[in-house]
């Protein structure tokens, strides 16, 4: 993963994780430090992100945080605000979550109209008095389970929506375990918006659900902050901070690199898709999904419905077609509306009718645009496929190399060049793949020629390196130097391409044939 280091930026963005610059929280962290932890002190104080140059035009500044760090920041913030408002931490936490962790807004609103904000956060009246407790109530019937045993424990918050303790528990655990809710669980009472506070929760649920609740609360903290995002890799525990805002996404493709090794886009959380901006990626994926039966399209047995353009397959000999999607009835031969056909059921002699000519022209046009799409799609899909094949070959090679190590006495270190080559291939193919989606939407201007050259050069470099994996295993050791060279060259071509596309994107030099907004 050596090549990765080039792309890892250790600079902090201008906002720290809490939004206050002078924070000096020290964090007890049982985990190995995240990659830029040692830069934290610098980062929290530095306010001059724009002065710090990135290594490449396509790099963005970001920081990786562990859940423990996030939890600690969250607790610290609750504590600070709690002492300002004079509210206990539980209530403060609810208030902060209610205002999506906007501390300044909370303090302002609290000072201005305390009762209103307490009410709207579901805390009503004085949140401090009477701690929550279970009660037995004579004549009580639970409105959820219909149980009327006078000995059963019941619970209600201040709103007095009372239920038996079993139902209350069941309700909370369904919300927390099944629906993943935490910060804004409402009272089970019909129409009641009061939020269940953590003290009530503590009284009602067991340890396992409490743990889950805490995890979810930390989740919502990150979800509520525009500059924080969870790494989307399965089971990854880290969150990343990046200063790129939604409105910046037309000028920048913010790929970030998690501690777990996953590269993803901070803008949309999808896998790294440089050089294509998020908006294009979204359009492209949608298009690929809509056209998933691409192969069928081209076959002679399909045509597009002249009304809604969905694909229709001809089965059997009848020319009377009915579009499955829009129910449009038309003639297979002439593409004209079926109702114009009268009774000529088996033979179409209306080839020159106007509705038919127009439909056929439209068909030809749509075929043309389809072929253009397929040109790019095939290359896009090919790199996706090849990345998988490269990986398979590499895994096989690695196995053989391990065997070879024992017979030839080569050390583990000596076979690492294969690993580096494989990583570079994966990364370059990922980039190449997206260059084709990018190119599909690119309108020709004087910047496109350089882009196409760069694309071609990277593609050639990648195929040359990829070929080497097909060499017989016993030759590989002798090809080490050549392989190292080719790996370095691939990486270099990728940087050149990404630098060029990123710079032009930033300065608005690309023209697209679709609207990105």
């Amino acid at each position, binding site marked *: 993963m050596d090549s990765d280091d080039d792309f890892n930026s250790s600079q902090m963005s201008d906002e720290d994780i809490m939004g206050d610059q002078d924070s000096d929280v020290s964090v007890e962290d049982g985990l190995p430090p995240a990659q830029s932890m040692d830069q934290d002190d610098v980062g929290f104080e530095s306010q001059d992100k724009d002065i710090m140059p990135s290594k490449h035009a396509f790099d963005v500044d970001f920081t990786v945080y562990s859940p423990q760090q996030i939890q600690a920041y969250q607790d610290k913030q609750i504590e600070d605000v709690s002492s300002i408002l004079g509210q206990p931490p539980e209530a403060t936490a609810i208030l902060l979550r209610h205002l999506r962790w906007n501390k300044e807004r909370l303090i302002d609103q609290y000072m201005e109209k305390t009762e209103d904000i307490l009410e709207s956060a579901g805390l009503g009246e004085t949140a401090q008095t009477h701690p929550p407790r279970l009660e037995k109530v004579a004549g009580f019937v639970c409105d*959820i389970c*219909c149980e009327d045993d006078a000995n059963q424990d019941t619970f209600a918050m201040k709103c007095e929506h009372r239920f038996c303790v079993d139902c209350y528990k069941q309700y909370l655990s369904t919300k927390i375990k099944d629906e993943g*809710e935490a910060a804004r669980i409402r009272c089970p009472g019909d129409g009641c918006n009061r939020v269940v506070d953590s003290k009530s929760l503590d009284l009602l649920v067991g340890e396992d659900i409490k743990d889950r609740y805490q995890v979810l609360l930390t989740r919502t903290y990150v979800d509520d902050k525009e500059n924080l995002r969870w790494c989307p890799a399965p089971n990854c525990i880290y969150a990343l901070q990046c200063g790129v805002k939604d409105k910046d996404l037309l000028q920048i493709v913010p790929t970030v690199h998690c501690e777990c090794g996953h590269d993803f886009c901070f803008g949309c959380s999808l896998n790294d898709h440089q050089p294509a901006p998020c908006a294009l990626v979204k359009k492209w994926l949608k298009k690929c999904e809509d056209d998933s039966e691409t192969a069928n399209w081209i076959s002679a047995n399909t045509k597009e419905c002249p009304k809604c353009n969905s694909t229709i397959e001809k089965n059997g000999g009848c020319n009377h077609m009915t579009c499955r999607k829009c129910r449009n009835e038309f003639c297979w031969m002439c593409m004209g509306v079926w109702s114009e056909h009268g009774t000529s059921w088996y033979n179409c002699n209306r080839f020159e009718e106007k509705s038919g000519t127009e439909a056929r022209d439209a068909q030809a046009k749509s075929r043309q645009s389809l072929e253009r799409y397929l040109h790019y799609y095939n290359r896009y899909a090919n790199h996706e496929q090849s990345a998988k094949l490269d990986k398979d070959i590499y895994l096989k090679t690695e196995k053989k190399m391990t065997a070879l190590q024992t017979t030839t006495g080569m050390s583990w270190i000596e076979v690492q060049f294969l690993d580096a080559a494989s990583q570079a291939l994966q990364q370059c193919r990922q980039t190449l793949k997206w260059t084709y989606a990018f190119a599909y939407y690119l309108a020709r201007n004087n910047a496109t020629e350089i882009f196409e050259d760069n694309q071609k050069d990277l593609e050639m470099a990648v195929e040359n390196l990829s070929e080497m994996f097909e060499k017989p295993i016993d030759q590989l050791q002798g090809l080490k130097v050549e392989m190292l060279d080719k790996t370095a060259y691939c990486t270099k071509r990728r940087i050149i391409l990404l630098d060029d596309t990123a710079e032009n994107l930033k300065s608005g030099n690309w023209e697209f044939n679709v609207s990105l907004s």
Partner: protein
Amino acid sequence: MSTGAKKRIMKEYGECMADTPPGMKINFDEQNMTEWEVLMDGPDGSSYAGGHFKLKITFPNEYPFKPPVVSFKTKIYHPNVSNDDKGSMCLGLLRPDEWKPPNKVVAVLRLIHNLLVEPNPDDSIEPSIANEYKENRKEFDKNAKDWVKRYAK
């Protein structure tokens, strides 16, 4: 399903019988009490008048902590009913984040009845039908009535 939940469904059935919304009939099978069949007449004066619709109400295992699931077995041209073989509805009370455990099936039945009288195009499952309902009521009425004739007689 817990005995508590079964007890509650039984009780709700009793309540529904005592206070059935207009034009509805419930087929309840004690052997399979988590699936109710509801026969419903299109409300008078609505686009669905004269139609007879069959619905299924399914109680999930977690009932009443999760809402019952409603599906139209009879095809219906409606912005809030999915135009597929499921005929599902997902709005208001029927959404997991809106449903509260004290809510009752009878309220769901009323919701369905009201939606046939007055569809809710702002929370639609079929955007094109919702659009037509808003922009071209005449065409909508025609289609809805057409479907009643075709599927709900």
